[in-house]
């Protein structure tokens, strides 16, 4: 009885947050079915007819190429980031050595530099490496700038893993590499999911490096492709909303998988605790 009454305000709170977090996405989704005129004259109304014109326009403008580029860049960067960030975090979280703290702080420092000042040095660097206007030229900076936050999160999670596990493995003569791969890494699933989501979204929506480091249409990522909808002094808002609605689907998918993974991953790795 008491629980039921208590449940009601809880539910109301949940619903309130539901509306606040979900409404803008819904508006984006609905706007993507409007024409420019309809949006201009009644921005908040329900679309008169669910016209797919904007989506057809996307196909015409070859958005799938941008989509593919974004996918390649994001997936490659995220996988590499997870691998090397988790590896780097392992000694930082689990081993005692003199330079541990300084190295950790050195990694953290990377979060503090505003991205825009790095444009000129990184542009020059990318040119020198001969990677200008290529997807590989983007992956480097994406990985580098995703490392700090990933290492911070991984280190945090790794510190929470009980020492006993590791010690018993060591008794069995397990090497560090094996220890990391077969014991620590599987226990990191929630952290991996979090890091993957964060970086995937970030890289998927990244604009300024993509703007400066690529140039040709065939290497443009989705955020750069949006320029198709910008006039010199105007924006085709419904068109942009269509592109971004479609563009958020992979993100939703990654989120779903990652979240499910946390639950199943934990069930599998329930050795802990």
């Amino acid at each position, binding site marked *: 009885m008491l629980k039921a009454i208590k449940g009601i305000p809880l539910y109301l709170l*949940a619903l309130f*947050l539901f509306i606040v977090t979900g409404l803008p996405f819904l508006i984006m989704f609905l706007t993507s079915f409007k024409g420019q005129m309809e949006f201009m004259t009644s921005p908040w109304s329900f679309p008169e007819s669910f016209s797919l014109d904007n989506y057809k326009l996307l196909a015409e403008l070859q958005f799938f190429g941008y989509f593919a580029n974004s996918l390649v860049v994001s997936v490659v960067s995220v996988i590499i980031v997870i*691998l090397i960030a988790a590896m780097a975090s392992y000694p930082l979280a689990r081993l005692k050595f003199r330079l541990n703290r300084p190295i950790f702080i050195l990694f953290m420092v990377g979060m*503090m530099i505003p991205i825009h000042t790095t444009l000129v040095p990184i542009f020059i660097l990318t040119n020198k490496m001969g990677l200008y206007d290529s997807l590989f030229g983007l992956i480097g900076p994406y990985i*580098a700038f995703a*490392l700090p936050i990933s290492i911070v999160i991984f280190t945090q999670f790794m510190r929470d893993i009980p020492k006993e596990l590791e010690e018993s493995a060591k008794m069995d003569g397990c090497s560090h590499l094996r220890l990391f791969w077969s014991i620590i890494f599987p226990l990191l699933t929630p952290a991996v999911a979090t890091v993957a989501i964060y970086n995937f979204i970030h890289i998927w*929506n990244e604009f300024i490096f993509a703007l400066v480091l690529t140039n040709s249409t065939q290497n443009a990522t989705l955020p750069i492709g949006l320029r198709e909808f910008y006039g010199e002094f105007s924006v085709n808002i419904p068109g942009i909303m269509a592109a971004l609605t479609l563009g*958020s689907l992979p*993100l939703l998918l990654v989120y779903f998988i990652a979240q499910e993974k946390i639950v199943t991953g934990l069930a599998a790795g329930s050795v802990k605790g």
Partner: protein
Amino acid sequence: MSRLQEISLDTVHVRKKKKNKDTWVIIGFIAPAFIIYGVYVIYSIFMTFYYSTFDWTGIDANMVFVGLDNYIQLFQDDVFWTSIQNNFLLVIASLLTQLPVGLIMALLLFSPIKGMRLFRSVYFMPFLMSTVAIGILFIFIYEGNYGLLNAILEGIGLESLQTAWIGKESTAIWAVIATVCWQFAPFYMILFRATMVGIPEELYEAADIDGASGWQRFKSITLPLLKPIIITSAILSVIGSLKYFDLIYVMTGGGPNNSTELMATYMYKQTFTNFNMGYGSSISFSMFIIAFIVTVFILLGDRSTRGNG
């Protein structure tokens, strides 16, 4: 006897070898990340400081070394001080809203609510929306003449609160800060959730046997176990707020009358609009130093409370 000796010698040998081996393990594990990181990030940080000691437009070959003049000029720059102030408003607002709201959402996801999966997905949506979309939508939501927010206020009988939210200097910064917090709270939600799923069920079961209430359970089990991740989140949130750029750039461009200028948007303006690469770099490097100092303070504060407890 000789056998025993052999064994102890062996262990000494092994230990020495192991220490050596550990160094190589550490290097091997850290090197891949460190190399990429060093090439792009550390190099950039160094170059930022280097540029900041020049009077340079950023587009020509003519760099004049001026030492710390840019920094001296920066200290007398009113707009820079306004932007620092705005950045700290954002820091405080982020800490006070993003983290608690993220925590509440994460907790809600563990409560026995129907349709939890749906809630879980929708709660996350602000974070996966592109900043471009958020910026455009919120410009329209905050609009003074036909904006959605004003319409909602009218609907619930609060006409007196209606205003042109991002058109007025007094409200603009708050409107943007609210949007930033709205966007980032879900990130902390998943961070907290990922930690909470790791809390062993047995701890709660034990508490249930003791007849602990929900609040007691939260206070005595969840919160202490979340503390490290809360500290980490606080650091992420503070650093993120100190170098924040995106939505301000899209929504207000730092206006009206510089009232929403942040350090990063001001740096961008100086660097790319006014062609003051040297000066812009000095803003960047100052941002870097400020973020560094604040982070060290949080870490020290964390250590001292840990020491007391």
